Protein backbone atom coordinates (compact mmCIF):
# COMPACT_ATOMS: atom_id res chain seq x y z
CA UNK A 1 0.00 0.00 0.00
CA UNK A 2 2.78 2.37 1.00
CA UNK A 3 4.71 1.79 -2.22
CA UNK A 4 1.70 2.37 -4.40
CA UNK A 5 0.89 5.64 -2.68
CA UNK A 6 4.55 6.65 -3.02
CA UNK A 7 4.49 5.73 -6.72
CA UNK A 8 1.31 7.69 -7.07
CA UNK A 9 2.85 10.74 -5.40
CA UNK A 10 5.95 10.44 -7.63
CA UNK A 11 3.75 10.18 -10.68
CA UNK A 12 1.94 13.35 -9.70
CA UNK A 13 5.24 15.11 -9.03
CA UNK A 14 6.47 14.12 -12.48
CA UNK A 15 3.42 15.59 -14.12
CA UNK A 16 3.95 18.99 -12.51
CA UNK A 17 5.12 21.85 -14.66
CA UNK A 18 8.20 22.53 -12.48
CA UNK A 19 9.43 18.93 -12.83
CA UNK A 20 8.89 18.97 -16.56
CA UNK A 21 10.69 22.29 -16.93
CA UNK A 22 13.75 20.82 -15.19
CA UNK A 23 13.96 17.35 -16.72
CA UNK A 24 12.09 17.77 -20.04
CA UNK A 25 11.67 14.03 -20.56
CA UNK A 26 9.55 11.06 -19.58
CA UNK A 27 10.57 8.63 -16.83
CA UNK A 28 13.52 6.42 -17.81
CA UNK A 29 11.46 3.35 -18.72
CA UNK A 30 12.73 2.71 -22.21
CA UNK A 31 16.24 2.61 -23.69
CA UNK A 32 15.50 5.88 -25.44
CA UNK A 33 14.43 7.73 -22.31
CA UNK A 34 17.33 6.20 -20.36
CA UNK A 35 19.74 7.57 -22.98
CA UNK A 36 17.99 10.93 -22.86
CA UNK A 37 18.43 10.95 -19.08
CA UNK A 38 22.20 10.90 -19.65
CA UNK A 39 22.36 13.20 -22.69
CA UNK A 40 19.98 15.75 -21.22
CA UNK A 41 21.79 16.11 -17.91
CA UNK A 42 24.60 18.63 -17.72
CA UNK A 43 26.41 16.68 -15.00
CA UNK A 44 26.19 13.36 -16.84
CA UNK A 45 26.49 14.38 -20.49
CA UNK A 46 30.21 13.56 -20.64
CA UNK A 47 29.39 9.97 -19.68
CA UNK A 48 28.44 7.36 -22.28
CA UNK A 49 24.76 6.46 -22.54
CA UNK A 50 25.71 2.81 -22.92
CA UNK A 51 28.68 0.81 -21.63
CA UNK A 52 29.86 -2.69 -22.24
CA UNK A 53 29.16 -4.97 -19.33
CA UNK A 54 32.81 -6.10 -19.22
CA UNK A 55 33.98 -2.56 -18.57
CA UNK A 56 31.84 -2.39 -15.43
CA UNK A 57 33.54 -5.44 -13.88
CA UNK A 58 35.74 -4.55 -10.94
CA UNK A 59 38.72 -6.35 -12.48
CA UNK A 60 38.44 -4.33 -15.70
CA UNK A 61 39.51 -1.06 -14.06
CA UNK A 62 39.38 -1.58 -10.28
CA UNK A 63 37.55 1.78 -10.45
CA UNK A 64 40.91 3.50 -10.01
CA UNK A 65 39.98 6.53 -12.10
CA UNK A 66 36.69 6.87 -10.24
CA UNK A 67 38.53 6.53 -6.94
CA UNK A 68 40.91 9.31 -7.97
CA UNK A 69 38.00 11.55 -8.94
CA UNK A 70 36.21 10.75 -5.69
CA UNK A 71 39.33 11.78 -3.76
CA UNK A 72 39.47 15.00 -5.79
CA UNK A 73 35.87 15.76 -4.76
CA UNK A 74 36.69 14.99 -1.11
CA UNK A 75 39.74 17.28 -1.33
CA UNK A 76 37.67 20.08 -2.87
CA UNK A 77 35.02 19.92 -0.14
CA UNK A 78 37.44 19.61 2.79
CA UNK A 79 39.74 22.21 1.23
CA UNK A 80 36.96 24.80 0.96
CA UNK A 81 36.00 24.13 4.58
CA UNK A 82 39.62 24.51 5.71
CA UNK A 83 39.88 27.82 3.84
CA UNK A 84 37.28 29.29 6.19
CA UNK A 85 39.75 29.13 9.10
CA UNK A 86 43.04 29.68 7.32
CA UNK A 87 44.87 32.97 6.69
CA UNK A 88 47.78 32.74 4.23
CA UNK A 89 49.95 35.11 6.25
CA UNK A 90 53.08 34.86 8.38
CA UNK A 91 52.88 33.81 11.21
CA UNK A 92 49.09 33.45 11.30
CA UNK A 93 49.11 30.45 8.94
CA UNK A 94 50.91 28.24 11.47
CA UNK A 95 48.59 29.40 14.28
CA UNK A 96 45.53 28.69 12.15
CA UNK A 97 46.86 25.21 11.43
CA UNK A 98 47.33 24.65 15.18
CA UNK A 99 43.85 26.05 15.84
CA UNK A 100 42.39 23.66 13.33
CA UNK A 101 44.05 20.80 15.19
CA UNK A 102 43.28 21.78 18.76
CA UNK A 103 40.53 24.43 18.93
CA UNK A 104 38.12 24.16 16.00
CA UNK A 105 35.42 21.49 16.36
CA UNK A 106 36.22 18.59 14.03
CA UNK A 107 39.06 20.69 12.61
CA UNK A 108 41.57 17.91 13.15
CA UNK A 109 39.23 15.53 11.32
CA UNK A 110 38.90 17.80 8.30
CA UNK A 111 42.59 18.62 8.21
CA UNK A 112 43.61 14.99 8.39
CA UNK A 113 40.97 14.02 5.86
CA UNK A 114 42.38 16.63 3.47
CA UNK A 115 45.97 15.58 4.11
CA UNK A 116 45.37 11.83 3.87
CA UNK A 117 43.08 12.16 0.86
CA UNK A 118 45.82 14.16 -0.87
CA UNK A 119 48.35 11.41 -0.23
CA UNK A 120 45.83 8.76 -1.27
CA UNK A 121 45.13 10.69 -4.47
CA UNK A 122 48.79 10.62 -5.46
CA UNK A 123 48.81 6.86 -4.85
CA UNK A 124 45.54 6.42 -6.75
CA UNK A 125 46.77 8.45 -9.73
CA UNK A 126 49.95 6.37 -10.00
CA UNK A 127 48.06 3.11 -9.52
CA UNK A 128 45.55 4.18 -12.19
CA UNK A 129 48.41 5.04 -14.57
CA UNK A 130 50.24 1.77 -13.95
CA UNK A 131 47.01 -0.12 -14.55
CA UNK A 132 46.29 1.75 -17.78
CA UNK A 133 49.89 1.28 -18.89
CA UNK A 134 50.11 -2.45 -18.23
CA UNK A 135 46.68 -3.07 -19.75
CA UNK A 136 47.72 -1.12 -22.86
CA UNK A 137 45.02 1.49 -22.40
CA UNK A 138 47.37 4.18 -23.72
CA UNK A 139 47.37 2.68 -27.23
CA UNK A 140 45.51 4.26 -30.16
CA UNK A 141 42.87 5.62 -30.25
CA UNK A 142 43.42 6.58 -26.59
CA UNK A 143 46.94 8.03 -26.88
CA UNK A 144 45.82 11.65 -26.46
CA UNK A 145 43.87 10.80 -23.33
CA UNK A 146 47.06 9.29 -21.92
CA UNK A 147 48.75 12.65 -22.49
CA UNK A 148 45.86 14.43 -20.75
CA UNK A 149 46.30 11.93 -17.91
CA UNK A 150 50.00 12.78 -17.62
CA UNK A 151 48.95 16.44 -17.38
CA UNK A 152 46.59 15.50 -14.56
CA UNK A 153 49.41 13.60 -12.81
CA UNK A 154 51.54 16.75 -12.92
CA UNK A 155 48.64 18.89 -11.64
CA UNK A 156 48.13 16.41 -8.79
CA UNK A 157 51.80 16.58 -7.85
CA UNK A 158 51.83 20.42 -8.07
CA UNK A 159 48.73 20.54 -5.88
CA UNK A 160 50.46 18.33 -3.31
CA UNK A 161 53.60 20.42 -3.48
CA UNK A 162 51.86 23.80 -3.14
CA UNK A 163 49.70 22.48 -0.31
CA UNK A 164 52.84 21.36 1.51
CA UNK A 165 53.90 24.94 2.27
CA UNK A 166 50.59 26.08 3.73
CA UNK A 167 51.02 24.76 7.35
CA UNK A 168 54.08 27.04 7.51
CA UNK A 169 56.09 24.76 9.79
CA UNK A 170 59.75 23.71 9.52
CA UNK A 171 58.90 20.76 7.29
CA UNK A 172 56.98 23.02 4.91
CA UNK A 173 59.65 25.71 4.87
CA UNK A 174 62.53 23.37 4.10
CA UNK A 175 60.58 21.28 1.62
CA UNK A 176 59.74 24.38 -0.41
CA UNK A 177 63.28 25.73 -0.02
CA UNK A 178 64.66 22.47 -1.42
CA UNK A 179 62.00 22.20 -4.11
CA UNK A 180 62.46 25.70 -5.44
CA UNK A 181 66.23 25.22 -5.37
CA UNK A 182 65.71 22.23 -7.63
CA UNK A 183 63.76 24.49 -10.02
CA UNK A 184 66.57 27.06 -10.02
CA UNK A 185 68.98 24.36 -11.22
CA UNK A 186 67.23 24.49 -14.59
CA UNK A 187 69.47 26.35 -17.05
CA UNK A 188 68.56 29.96 -17.96
CA UNK A 189 64.88 29.79 -16.97
CA UNK A 190 65.39 28.31 -13.49
CA UNK A 191 66.23 31.44 -11.53
CA UNK A 192 63.45 33.65 -13.01
CA UNK A 193 60.86 30.90 -12.47
CA UNK A 194 61.96 30.51 -8.86
CA UNK A 195 61.76 34.28 -8.38
CA UNK A 196 58.23 34.41 -9.85
CA UNK A 197 57.08 31.37 -7.89
CA UNK A 198 58.34 32.68 -4.56
CA UNK A 199 57.67 36.34 -5.28
CA UNK A 200 61.19 37.03 -4.01
CA UNK A 201 64.49 35.35 -3.28
CA UNK A 202 63.43 33.62 -0.06
CA UNK A 203 60.56 31.42 1.06
CA UNK A 204 58.61 34.18 2.82
CA UNK A 205 55.25 35.91 2.98
CA UNK A 206 54.98 36.37 -0.78
CA UNK A 207 55.77 32.72 -1.38
CA UNK A 208 53.10 31.62 1.09
CA UNK A 209 50.45 33.79 -0.58
CA UNK A 210 51.44 32.67 -4.08
CA UNK A 211 51.41 29.01 -3.14
CA UNK A 212 48.02 29.54 -1.48
CA UNK A 213 46.52 31.07 -4.63
CA UNK A 214 48.07 28.36 -6.80
CA UNK A 215 46.81 25.65 -4.46
CA UNK A 216 43.28 26.98 -3.98
CA UNK A 217 42.44 28.63 -7.29
CA UNK A 218 44.74 28.20 -10.27
CA UNK A 219 45.67 24.53 -10.08
CA UNK A 220 42.15 23.30 -9.15
CA UNK A 221 40.71 25.25 -12.11
CA UNK A 222 43.22 23.66 -14.48
CA UNK A 223 42.49 20.27 -12.91
CA UNK A 224 38.72 20.65 -13.41
CA UNK A 225 39.19 21.53 -17.09
CA UNK A 226 41.59 18.62 -17.67
CA UNK A 227 39.31 16.21 -15.78
CA UNK A 228 36.43 17.31 -18.01
CA UNK A 229 38.47 16.67 -21.15
CA UNK A 230 39.72 13.36 -19.73
CA UNK A 231 36.20 12.02 -19.04
CA UNK A 232 34.82 13.30 -22.30
CA UNK A 233 37.65 11.64 -24.23
CA UNK A 234 37.01 8.29 -22.55
CA UNK A 235 33.58 8.30 -24.18
CA UNK A 236 34.75 9.70 -27.53
CA UNK A 237 37.62 7.20 -27.76
CA UNK A 238 35.18 4.31 -27.59
CA UNK A 239 34.63 3.70 -23.91
CA UNK A 240 36.92 2.20 -21.33
CA UNK A 241 39.77 0.06 -22.53
CA UNK A 242 38.95 -3.50 -21.54
CA UNK A 243 41.66 -6.09 -21.60
CA UNK A 244 41.11 -8.61 -24.36
CA UNK A 245 42.08 -11.53 -22.14
CA UNK A 246 39.41 -10.70 -19.57
CA UNK A 247 36.78 -10.68 -22.27
CA UNK A 248 37.97 -14.02 -23.62
CA UNK A 249 38.02 -15.56 -20.14
CA UNK A 250 34.52 -14.29 -19.54
CA UNK A 251 33.38 -15.69 -22.86
CA UNK A 252 34.93 -19.07 -22.04
CA UNK A 253 33.19 -19.28 -18.69
CA UNK A 254 29.83 -18.48 -20.15
CA UNK A 255 30.15 -21.27 -22.67
Amino acid at each position, binding site marked *: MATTSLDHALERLRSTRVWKSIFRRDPAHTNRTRSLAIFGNFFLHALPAKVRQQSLRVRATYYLGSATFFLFVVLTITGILLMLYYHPAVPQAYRDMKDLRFVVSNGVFLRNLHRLAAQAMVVAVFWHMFHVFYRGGYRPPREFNWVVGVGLLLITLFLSYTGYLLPWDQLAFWAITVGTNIISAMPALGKPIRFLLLGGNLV*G*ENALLRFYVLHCVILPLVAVVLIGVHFWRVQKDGGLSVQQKVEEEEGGKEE
Partner: protein
Amino acid sequence: MSESDKSPAPKPLGAQAISTSRRDFLNEVAVGALGIAGLGAVVITYRYLSPNVLFEPSSTFRAGNPDLYPVNSVTYLHEQQVYIVRTEQGFYAVSAVCTHLGCITQWKPDANQIACPCHGSKFRSDGTKIEGPAPRPLPHFSITLTVDGELMVNKLETVKPSQTLRV
Protein backbone atom coordinates in the same frame (compact mmCIF):
# COMPACT_ATOMS: atom_id res chain seq x y z
CA MET B 1 55.28 54.17 -61.90
CA SER B 2 55.75 52.90 -65.42
CA GLU B 3 54.14 49.63 -64.41
CA SER B 4 51.00 51.32 -63.17
CA ASP B 5 50.84 53.46 -66.29
CA LYS B 6 50.79 50.39 -68.48
CA SER B 7 47.98 48.66 -66.65
CA PRO B 8 44.74 49.70 -68.30
CA ALA B 9 42.34 49.42 -65.37
CA PRO B 10 42.42 48.24 -61.75
CA LYS B 11 42.07 44.48 -61.94
CA PRO B 12 39.42 42.76 -59.86
CA LEU B 13 40.72 41.33 -56.59
CA GLY B 14 42.01 37.82 -56.88
CA ALA B 15 42.40 37.96 -60.65
CA GLN B 16 46.18 38.23 -60.34
CA ALA B 17 48.40 35.93 -58.26
CA ILE B 18 46.70 37.27 -55.15
CA SER B 19 45.10 34.32 -53.47
CA THR B 20 44.04 36.18 -50.33
CA SER B 21 40.41 37.06 -50.16
CA ARG B 22 39.20 40.04 -48.16
CA ARG B 23 37.89 37.70 -45.46
CA ASP B 24 41.27 35.92 -45.18
CA PHE B 25 43.09 39.24 -45.05
CA LEU B 26 40.87 40.57 -42.27
CA ASN B 27 41.20 37.29 -40.41
CA GLU B 28 44.98 37.50 -40.64
CA VAL B 29 44.92 41.09 -39.40
CA ALA B 30 42.66 40.10 -36.52
CA VAL B 31 44.82 37.10 -35.57
CA GLY B 32 47.94 39.28 -35.79
CA ALA B 33 46.39 41.96 -33.60
CA LEU B 34 45.26 39.38 -31.07
CA GLY B 35 48.73 37.84 -31.14
CA ILE B 36 50.37 41.18 -30.43
CA ALA B 37 47.84 41.91 -27.68
CA GLY B 38 48.38 38.45 -26.21
CA LEU B 39 52.15 38.89 -26.24
CA GLY B 40 51.72 42.25 -24.53
CA ALA B 41 49.47 40.65 -21.93
CA VAL B 42 52.14 38.01 -21.24
CA VAL B 43 54.81 40.69 -20.81
CA ILE B 44 52.57 42.81 -18.57
CA THR B 45 51.62 39.79 -16.46
CA TYR B 46 55.25 38.77 -16.12
CA ARG B 47 56.17 42.28 -14.96
CA TYR B 48 53.20 42.31 -12.60
CA LEU B 49 54.26 38.99 -11.08
CA SER B 50 57.83 40.17 -10.44
CA PRO B 51 57.71 42.22 -7.25
CA ASN B 52 59.54 45.56 -7.36
CA VAL B 53 59.83 45.94 -3.60
CA LEU B 54 60.86 43.02 -1.44
CA PHE B 55 60.47 42.93 2.32
CA GLU B 56 63.40 40.61 2.74
CA PRO B 57 66.64 41.00 4.65
CA SER B 58 69.07 42.90 2.45
CA SER B 59 71.41 40.72 0.45
CA THR B 60 74.26 43.11 1.19
CA PHE B 61 75.28 43.69 4.78
CA ARG B 62 78.03 45.28 6.82
CA ALA B 63 80.13 42.79 8.72
CA GLY B 64 81.80 45.37 10.97
CA ASN B 65 85.39 46.43 11.41
CA PRO B 66 88.06 44.02 10.11
CA ASP B 67 89.76 44.13 13.51
CA LEU B 68 86.82 42.20 14.96
CA TYR B 69 88.10 39.07 13.25
CA PRO B 70 91.40 37.61 14.45
CA VAL B 71 93.80 36.13 11.91
CA ASN B 72 93.15 32.45 11.12
CA SER B 73 89.59 32.51 12.41
CA VAL B 74 86.16 31.44 11.17
CA THR B 75 83.25 33.51 12.44
CA TYR B 76 79.65 32.52 11.86
CA LEU B 77 77.19 35.39 11.39
CA HIS B 78 73.88 33.90 12.48
CA GLU B 79 71.64 36.62 11.03
CA GLN B 80 73.20 36.42 7.59
CA GLN B 81 74.09 32.70 7.45
CA VAL B 82 77.60 33.54 6.32
CA TYR B 83 81.07 32.60 7.60
CA ILE B 84 83.63 35.40 7.67
CA VAL B 85 87.01 33.72 7.32
CA ARG B 86 90.25 35.58 7.98
CA THR B 87 93.49 33.97 6.94
CA GLU B 88 96.96 35.41 6.70
CA GLN B 89 96.20 36.23 3.06
CA GLY B 90 93.05 38.21 3.89
CA PHE B 91 89.28 37.96 4.18
CA TYR B 92 86.66 35.95 2.40
CA ALA B 93 82.98 35.23 3.02
CA VAL B 94 81.66 31.66 2.70
CA SER B 95 77.98 30.77 2.49
CA ALA B 96 76.66 28.69 5.40
CA VAL B 97 73.85 27.21 3.29
CA CYS B 98 74.64 23.62 2.36
CA THR B 99 74.76 23.07 -1.39
CA HIS B 100 73.00 19.73 -1.00
CA LEU B 101 69.49 20.66 0.15
CA GLY B 102 69.85 24.09 1.69
CA CYS B 103 70.31 23.25 5.37
CA ILE B 104 72.37 25.58 7.56
CA THR B 105 75.85 24.20 8.22
CA GLN B 106 77.87 24.62 11.42
CA TRP B 107 81.51 25.47 12.01
CA LYS B 108 83.25 22.81 14.14
CA PRO B 109 86.45 24.39 15.48
CA ASP B 110 87.70 21.10 17.02
CA ALA B 111 87.52 19.22 13.74
CA ASN B 112 88.52 22.35 11.81
CA GLN B 113 85.67 21.82 9.36
CA ILE B 114 82.17 22.97 8.43
CA ALA B 115 79.58 20.23 8.92
CA CYS B 116 75.98 19.97 7.80
CA PRO B 117 73.60 18.51 10.40
CA CYS B 118 71.08 17.25 7.87
CA HIS B 119 72.96 14.70 5.76
CA GLY B 120 76.54 14.87 7.00
CA SER B 121 78.26 16.87 4.29
CA LYS B 122 81.64 18.21 5.40
CA PHE B 123 83.58 21.19 4.08
CA ARG B 124 86.89 22.89 4.81
CA SER B 125 86.86 26.45 6.06
CA ASP B 126 87.47 27.68 2.52
CA GLY B 127 84.25 25.96 1.44
CA THR B 128 85.83 23.08 -0.48
CA LYS B 129 84.07 19.77 -0.04
CA ILE B 130 85.58 17.02 2.10
CA GLU B 131 82.78 14.50 1.83
CA GLY B 132 79.05 13.96 1.86
CA PRO B 133 76.14 14.26 -0.52
CA ALA B 134 76.74 17.95 -1.24
CA PRO B 135 77.44 18.28 -4.97
CA ARG B 136 79.38 21.55 -4.92
CA PRO B 137 81.67 23.45 -2.56
CA LEU B 138 80.18 26.27 -0.51
CA PRO B 139 80.18 29.45 -2.62
CA HIS B 140 82.21 32.53 -1.74
CA PHE B 141 80.42 35.88 -1.62
CA SER B 142 81.92 39.13 -2.77
CA ILE B 143 83.47 41.00 0.12
CA THR B 144 84.59 44.62 -0.07
CA LEU B 145 85.67 47.42 2.19
CA THR B 146 83.39 50.44 2.61
CA VAL B 147 84.69 53.99 2.64
CA ASP B 148 84.55 54.10 6.42
CA GLY B 149 86.61 50.92 6.65
CA GLU B 150 83.94 48.28 7.33
CA LEU B 151 83.60 44.89 5.65
CA MET B 152 80.71 44.71 3.19
CA VAL B 153 79.36 41.35 1.91
CA ASN B 154 77.07 40.95 -1.09
CA LYS B 155 75.27 37.61 -0.98
CA LEU B 156 73.89 37.94 -4.49
CA GLU B 157 77.38 38.07 -5.99
CA THR B 158 79.51 34.95 -5.82
CA VAL B 159 83.23 35.16 -6.51
CA LYS B 160 86.04 32.72 -7.21
CA PRO B 161 87.44 31.07 -4.07
CA SER B 162 90.88 32.41 -4.95
CA GLN B 163 89.67 35.96 -4.45
CA THR B 164 90.48 37.33 -1.00
CA LEU B 165 90.25 40.79 0.46
CA ARG B 166 93.52 42.17 1.82
CA VAL B 167 93.13 44.79 4.49
